[in-house]
């Protein structure tokens, strides 16, 4: 797979990144990206027919939690602490530029 500036921009858009307006920067970024992806293409050589994908090494995990309130110590006022972190608030709401 070859990566060019268009495909880099498309990925950036999906990931909500702004790659900036400088064409030189963008070209360099696409080249780096292309080199990395070209390296990843080595995987095509691996013989994986019939191999079950391994998504995680986790084993012997405990089951789900009960449907009960289980709060770590010192959680009082947590909602307030969370709201205090907001870059912009209206009352108890988080706030962003209007969507529609």
């Amino acid at each position: 797979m070859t990566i060019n500036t268009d495909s880099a921009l498309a990925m950036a858009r999906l990931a909500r990144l702004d790659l900036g307006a400088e064409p030189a920067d963008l070209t360099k970024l696409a080249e780096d990206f292309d080199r990395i992806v070209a390296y990843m293409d080595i995987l095509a050589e691996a013989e994986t027919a019939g191999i079950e994908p391994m998504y995680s090494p986790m084993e012997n995990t405990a089951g789900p939690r009960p449907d009960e309130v289980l709060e770590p110590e010192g959680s009082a006022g947590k909602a307030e602490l969370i709201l205090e972190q907001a870059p912009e608030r209206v009352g108890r709401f988080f706030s962003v530029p209007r969507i529609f």
Partner: protein
Amino acid sequence: MTQLWQLNLAQCSEGLKNKDFSVTELTEACLKRLTETEPAIKSCLAVLEDQALETARDLDRRGNDSSRLLWGLPLTVKDVFCLKGAPTTAGSRQLSDYYSVFEATVVRRLKAHGAIILAKTNCDEFAMGSSTEFSAFGPTRNPWDRQRVPGGSSGGAAASVAGFQVPGAFGTDTGGSIRQPAALCGCVGLKPTYGRVSRYGIIAYGSSFDQAGPLARTAADCGRLLQAVAGPDAYDATLADCPVPDFVNQRPLKPNELTLGLPRQFWNADLHPQVAKVLDEARNLLTKAGLNLIEVDLPNIKYAVAAYYILASAEASTNLARYDGVRYGFRQPDPGDLMELYTKTRQTGLGPEARRRILLGTFVLSSGYYEAYYRKAAQVRRLIKNDIEAALTRCHFLLAPVSAIPAWPLGSFLDDPLTVYQMDLMTLPLNLYGGPGLSVPAGLGDDNLPVGAQLWGKPMSEASLISAGRVLESLWPKLPEPQIPVI
């Protein structure tokens, strides 16, 4: 005369128990050492002096409690651990003013065991990097040579231990981020089994790889630190539901009881002459002492770097989606609309390596490429796991170099991400597999830079892994103290 800050963790604990010195004296000594050396090595992002002294005095008032494993011991934690009362930044501008609303399970357990958290240490942004140069707050310096990197991403943690600021530290290892800086700085670093230590409250990079673990000056000290934090936690669903053995009081192993497998692919790799020299000597010492060294084969290891960077970046790309400037953290001022709020915030708030991995991760998961990259990499992950499992049927542990080169000059590879990724070849397969690994100093090169070697074990084998590490320590030369200009 020995200074308090020169003591290792076990010695500190013994001294406290014998009332040779108080917790406050020890804490003050470490804080003084930290303040003196910090301008040279810059290992810390936040020093929690007031809280630390307050805790120390409180512990002294109440007296020693032998049920608490880390009673009165000063430590640092990497700045990816959520801790109340100090910013938790993960080395990112995006979180430069962020205060966590809860504490990581590891931090809670450390405190419950009476540890004193002296500082939060520097790291590559969101633990993505191998040199700590991708911290938004500037690089940490190697205690052995201030013009060189400490390794990464837990570079601050390794430097704080190797620089004798604290006797122990906690870092995280996603692709080698504990073992590699430990090797480059000359301390011991333990990556526990995936599922051994709760990830709750650790800012995520690659969720199926991330694992918290200790760095210290001896393998036994790492065991003590692991003991305090390991085991089931209702807040991390991926933890193994199994009992925690005693890591502190293990039967010592005799050298001739140990068979170590040396993966051909690593030992035949292109190692830096100083690394090769130190490791050759280290190997000879083992053979002389009666250890049985055999060669083992990991045929699929050539795919490991590609598989790891695909899978870890895929996970990272969505783990970092929450940094959108809506609920917390940095937000680009006065965005025109929501799209601009997102893109400008993330472009400015996130650094170059984080953005690079987000792009890569987005690509390998995107429609049309998922099968060829993401799924294929997950299949290769199983092949590599099978290789390591097969090798471990022939020996107790695998023995491998940690890094093909010693600590490199700052700025060497900033423009060459792919080369840096490839430099993780000898650490990241263990994270693909999930087993535990221990990095131990093997000696000092002629360039006066430390070289490390690592042991890999089967899942949940930390107790015997630490015992094996103690054997290596006893046979290999003890590193001198790095000379750090103090202010």
